């Protein structure tokens, strides 16, 4: 049985993980490669890395940091931020990432989704989208609008129409980031997550707002998501207590969510040594 994924998300500035609240007020946490190794040792299922200032600063993605993470982390690794072309995607994959996340750039030039899927396979392309509850109107029938550029710019696009189009163009996964919930530790926006999961047939990733194991379990069950992005709960200095991956997974299992089993030393103790 396919298990649900717990995904650690890093917002990276100059090689260091930072933590923001509703896309603002970033505070420094740790070097990206160091935190990635710690979470890999703690058996995280996957890591997503956003170079959050690359796009705004109109510069290429920080490939040295991507490489640093990829060399020491043997679970899947997605990179986003500042991807503007197929060549940028190829550079990131060559540096050791498995998947490319496109967001604001895909809104400006949706064809980049199709080009990426054609060149590297649709499993490589994650369409990440920042959504905000704006109320139902003729232009926004779902009540959720797509925003870009760090949630600063409204696009006039309906979230559900946009993710459907992204799937048609070739996105292999859809990540739904709730702007309203980002950094609030009040839980994912289950309504929009479930609406997206119903609208597409590719896996959906819940993002923005997880503060407790209960929230993660809700995103993966009521929200219909295949994966849940977490960050604060793992490492934010703003929270009184952070949780380890094992504690989170034990909590998910207790709530009936299937996860990758914990690997004990004895599980691989008999493995052949060179």
């Amino acid at each position, binding site marked *: 049985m396919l298990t649900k994924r717990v995904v650690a998300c890093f917002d990276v500035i100059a090689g260091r993980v930072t933590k923001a609240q509703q896309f603002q007020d970033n505070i420094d946490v740790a070097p990206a490669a160091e935190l990635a190794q710690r979470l890999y040792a703690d058996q995280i299922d996957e890591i997503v890395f956003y170079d959050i200032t690359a796009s705004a600063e109109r510069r290429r993605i920080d490939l040295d940091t991507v490489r640093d993470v990829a060399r020491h982390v*043997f*679970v899947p*690794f997605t990179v986003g931020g500042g991807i503007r072309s197929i060549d940028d995607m190829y550079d990131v994959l060559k540096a050791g990432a498995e998947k490319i996340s496109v967001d604001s750039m895909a809104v400006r030039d949706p064809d980049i989704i199709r080009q990426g899927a054609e060149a590297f396979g649709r499993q490589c392309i994650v369409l990440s989208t920042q959504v905000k509850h704006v109320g139902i109107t003729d232009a926004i029938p779902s009540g959720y609008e797509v925003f870009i550029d760090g949630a600063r710019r409204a696009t006039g696009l309906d979230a559900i129409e946009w993710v459907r189009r992204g799937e048609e163009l070739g996105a292999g996964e859809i990540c739904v980031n709730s702007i309203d919930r980002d950094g609030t530790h009040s839980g994912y926006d289950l309504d929009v997550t479930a609406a997206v999961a119903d609208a597409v047939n590719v896996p959906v990733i819940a993002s923005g707002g997880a503060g407790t194991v209960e929230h993660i379990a809700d995103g993966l069950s009521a929200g219909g998501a*295949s994966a849940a992005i977490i960050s604060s709960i793992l490492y934010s200095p703003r929270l009184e207590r952070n949780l380890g991956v094992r504690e989170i997974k034990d909590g998910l299992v207790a709530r009936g969510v299937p996860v990758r089993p914990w690997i004990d030393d004895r599980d*691989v*103790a008999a493995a052949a*040594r*060179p």
Partner: protein
Amino acid sequence: MIDVIDYRAGNAPSVLYALEHLGLSARVVSKPEEVAAATRIVLPGVGSAGATMASLEELSLVDALRARVLDDHVPFLGICIGLQVLFEHSEEGDVPTLGWLPGTVRRFPSTQRVPQIGWNGVRARRPHPLWNGLPETAHCYFVNSYYAVPADDTDTLGVTEYGVEFTSMVAHDNIAATQFHAEKSGRLGLTILRNFASWDGAPC
């Protein structure tokens, strides 16, 4: 020395990093003369069967790989698309593939979210050196829309459920392959790579 085949659609760097982490000598190769001298070969893969075959043909690697693997019997490990292209035909793009093993490649039923992305259990059907030290069921990381259907059931080493029970690991003489990404399957995946590095490729 492990030679990891590099082509534009592949993910050779991830495999190389994993082998280096295990302290194994490895390099990426993309020339037929390098393949002709290889003593242990990994064919990684992401993307589509058609794009993979086109890249292998463009780099003139198809004949070189066939000679080294089928005639000279060097130990071979295919990963993901590197498993699918071992068979004769893929539904993905309706393309002929390497045809080293009898069988075809089919798409997952539409009742499932496709691609399958995530950690799923692999159950070994019989003992094999690649499975040394692993539990009976090991969770490994999959990313696939298609799966292999070997014509010869004895070529299936491991099975996994995703709407259907499918072949997630293949072993035939000196040829082994994983549908999952062993290089991204944490400690259990690294154990499989370590096992491959010490396997003599003898049939079992």
